[in-house]
C-alpha cells in the first residue's frame, strides 16, 4: 500500500463503459438526428470503430496513469491523461469508506472502493473502481487503524451482528414508502395507456373480457384495483429485496459495518465518531405493526438519500432500545419523552384543521361532489391530536431525544457535542402563551438538518438551552 499501485486492468473496461455512457448521454439527440441522414449513416460504419479504438486507448492510458498509494498519513491518488491531477486525502478527513461490486467487478472477482469526505459536491472524493478484495481489505485496515482507535474487540463472536430475516424482509417490502410511489407511478401509466398504444382501446377490450367473467362494472373496477395493488406490492417487494437482501450489520470496534444488496453487493463502513445523530423512523404503515427503521445522519455527500444511511431497515420498536445499547451505545437513551404542555395541544390541532377547512370550503364551492372533502376535517383533527401526543423531548446523560410527527413519527437522538447550534424561537402568539419552538441544527453534508419541536413550555426550553450552553450553564 505504501508504494504506488495500479488498479486491476479490468478498470479499463469500467472506464470505457462510463466514458461511452457519458458520451451517449450527451450526444443522444444529435445522434438520432444523424441517423436520419443516409450519408452520415454510411460514414458511421467507419467512424464508430475508430471512436471505439480511441476510447480503448484513452481508457488504457487512464488506467496507466491512475495510481494510488499511502504516504504521510494521507491517501494519495494521481490520475489524468491530458490534465494530470493529484489528490491527497488526509486520514482525518475521511468520513466513510464504501465497498461495492457491480457487474464488471463481479465478473473479475473484484470490488470498487469509494472514500468520502465532508467536502461539497455529489461524487465520492476518491474512487478505486477495480481492486482485488485482498487489497481493498488491506486498505480498509490501514484506514481504520490509523483513523479510529484500534479495534477493542478481539474475536469475531463478540461482535454484535444483526441480520434481516426473510419475514422481516417481506414486511419491509410490504410497508415501504416505495409502495405508494410505485402505486402512483402505475396509475399514471395506466391513465396514459390509451395514448401509448394507438388504435386500440385497451380499456374497452379489458372491460369486455372482464365483463364476461364478472358481468358487472363495479366488479371490473374492483378487479382492476386489486390487480394494481397486487402488482404495486410485488414491485415494491422486489425493489426492497434487491436493495436490502442479505443485509447484515456489525459493530466492529469503532466502526459500523453494513453489507446489503442482492444484485450489487454494497459494503459500507461508518466510523461511529462520524455519526451526528440516530433517527428512529416509524412510517404510517409500520407504526401500527410496531415496526421502526433506524437511520443515521452523517456528513457525507454520496450517501443516497433514503436507503443509504439506513443502519437497520426494520426492527420491532420493543427491540429498538436493545439495538441502540448493543450497536450504538454512544446514542443510547430510553425512548420515553416528556410530553408538551397541554396548552399547545389546541395549536397542534388548529395548524392542521385550518388549512383543511380552507380546502373543504374551496372544494365544496368549486368542485362537483366537493362536499365529499368534508372527510378531511376528522382526519386533520385526528392528525393534530396524535401530532401533539407524540411530540416530546428528553435529555439524558448528555444526549437529547426529540420526537415529533408530520405523518410518520420520527425520534432523533443527538449527543450534546454533535449539536451545531441551538435556537429558541417564538412568535407573538406563542409568547402570549409562554410557548416556544426549539430548533437544533446538526451537520449532514451540504445542507444542514434542522430538528424542530414546536410548542415547548418557555421555562423548559430555557432549561434546555442552559443544558446546552457552555457559559450560561
Amino acid at each position, binding site marked *: 500500500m505504501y508504494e504506488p499501485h495500479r488498479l486491476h486492468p479490468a478498470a479499463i473496461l469500467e472506464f470505457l463503459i462510463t466514458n461511452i455512457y457519458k458520451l451517449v448521454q450527451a450526444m443522444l439527440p444529435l445522434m438520432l438526428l444523424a441517423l436520419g441522414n443516409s450519408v452520415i449513416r454510411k460514414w458511421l460504419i467507419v467512424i464508430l470503430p475508430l471512436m471505439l479504438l480511441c476510447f480503448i486507448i484513452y481508457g488504457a492510458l487512464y488506467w496507466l496513469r491512475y495510481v494510488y498509494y499511502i504516504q504521510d498519513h494521507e491517501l494519495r491518488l494521481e490520475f489524468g491523461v491530458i490534465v494530470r491531477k493529484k489528490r491527497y486525502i488526509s486520514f482525518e478527513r475521511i468520513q466513510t469508506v464504501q465497498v461495492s461490486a457491480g457487474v464488471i467487478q463481479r465478473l473479475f472477482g473484484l470490488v470498487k472502493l469509494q472514500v468520502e469526505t465532508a467536502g461539497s459536491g455529489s461524487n465520492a472524493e476518491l474512487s478505486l473502481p477495480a481492486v482485488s478484495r485482498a487489497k481493498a481489505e488491506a486498505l480498509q485496515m490501514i484506514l481504520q487503524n490509523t483513523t479510529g482507535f484500534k479495534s477493542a474487540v478481539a474475536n469475531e463472536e463478540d461482535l454484535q451482528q444483526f441480520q434481516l430475516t426473510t419475514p422481516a424482509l417481506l414486511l419491509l417490502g410490504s410497508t415501504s414508502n416505495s409502495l405508494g410511489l410505485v402505486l402512483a407511478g402505475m396509475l399514471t401509466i395506466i391513465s396514459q395507456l390509451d395514448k401509448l398504444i394507438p388504435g386500440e382501446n385497451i380499456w374497452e377490450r379489458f372491460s369486455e373480457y372482464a365483463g364476461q367473467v364478472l358481468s358487472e362494472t363495479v366488479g371490473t373496477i374492483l378487479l382492476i384495483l386489486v390487480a394494481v395493488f397486487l402488482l404495486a406490492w410485488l414491485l415494491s417487494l422486489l425493489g426492497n429485496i434487491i436493495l436490502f437482501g442479505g443485509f447484515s450489520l456489525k459493530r466492529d470496534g469503532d466502526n459500523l459495518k453494513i453489507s446489503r444488496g442482492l444484485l450489487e453487493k454494497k459494503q459500507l463502513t461508518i466510523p461511529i465518531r462520524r455519526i451526528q445523530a440516530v433517527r428512529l423512523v416509524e412510517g404510517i404503515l409500520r407504526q401500527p405493526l410496531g415496526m421502526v427503521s433506524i437511520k443515521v445522519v452523517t456528513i457525507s455527500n454520496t450517501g443516497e438519500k433514503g436507503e443509504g444511511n439506513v443502519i437497520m431497515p426494520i426492527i420491532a420498536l420493543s427491540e429498538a432500545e436493545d439495538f441502540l445499547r448493543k450497536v450504538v451505545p454512544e446514542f443510547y437513551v430510553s425512548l420515553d419523552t416528556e410530553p408538551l404542555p397541554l396548552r399547545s395541544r389546541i395549536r397542534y390541532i388548529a395548524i392542521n384543521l385550518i388549512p383543511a377547512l380552507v380546502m373543504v370550503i374551496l372544494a365544496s364551492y368549486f368542485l362537483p361532489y366537493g362536499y365529499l372533502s368534508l372527510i378531511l376535517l376528522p382526519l386533520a383533527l385526528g392528525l393534530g391530536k396524535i401530532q401533539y401526543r407524540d411530540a416530546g423531548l428528553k435529555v439524558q446523560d448528555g444526549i437529547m431525544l426529540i420526537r415529533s410527527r408530520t405523518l410518520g413519527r420520527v425520534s432523533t437522538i443527538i449527543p450534546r457535542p454533535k*449539536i451545531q447550534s441551538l435556537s*429558541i*424561537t417564538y412568535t407573538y402568539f406563542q409568547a402570549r402563551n409562554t410557548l416556544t419552538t426549539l430548533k437544533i*441544527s446538526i*451537520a449532514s453534508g451540504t445542507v444542514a438538518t434542522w430538528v424542530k419541536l414546536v410548542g415547548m413550555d418557555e421555562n423548559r426550553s430555557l432549561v434546555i*438551552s442552559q443544558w*446546552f450552553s457552555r457559559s*450560561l450553564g
Partner: protein
Amino acid sequence: MFCIKTDIFYLYLEVDDLQATPAYQIDPQAVSYWRWSGLINSIIFWMMVLAYYNTMNLWNPPGWIFPALLIAAILGTIFYVFLVPQIRWNTWRYDVSEQEIDLYFGVFVKHRTLIPMVRVQHVDTEQGPLLRYFQLSTVTISTAAGKHQIPALADSVAAELRARISLLARVVDEDV
C-alpha cells in the same frame, strides 16, 4: 441539570439569567441602511406593479389582481421602509464570550440562538455597496450545519469581532 423539579428557586435564578438578552447592540446606522435597502426593494416592486398595469390589457387577467398588488406594494413599502428597520434594530442583541456566541433577533419571530465556539468552522466579514456607503459590515459565522449572521456592525467592530471569534474558535474540541 434537573434541579428544576427539586429546587424552584434555583431554576428561576438560572432562567432569569438566560432571559436577560445578550449585551451588545448593533450599530445605530443599521436603521438607515435597512431603510435604504427596503426603499430600493420597494422601488423594484413598484416598477413591477407598474409594468403589470401597463401590460394588463394585452391579456385578460382577473380584475382583483391589480388592486391586490397595489395594496401589497403600499403595505410592503410602509413595513420595510418605516416600521421594520427600527423594530429590527431595537431587537438585535449579540454577545461573544469565550465559550459561545449568543444571538437574539427577529421582527415577527424572535430567535435566541446559541453557537458553541468549538463548533465554529470559520468566520467572515462582508460588505455590499450599500453597506460600504454606511461603513458597515456583516459578520458571518459558519458551522458544519449552516451560517449565522450578525448584520450591520461598524467596520472596525466587525473586524475586531472576526479576529476575536477566529482566535477563540481555534480551540480543538471533539471532532465534527
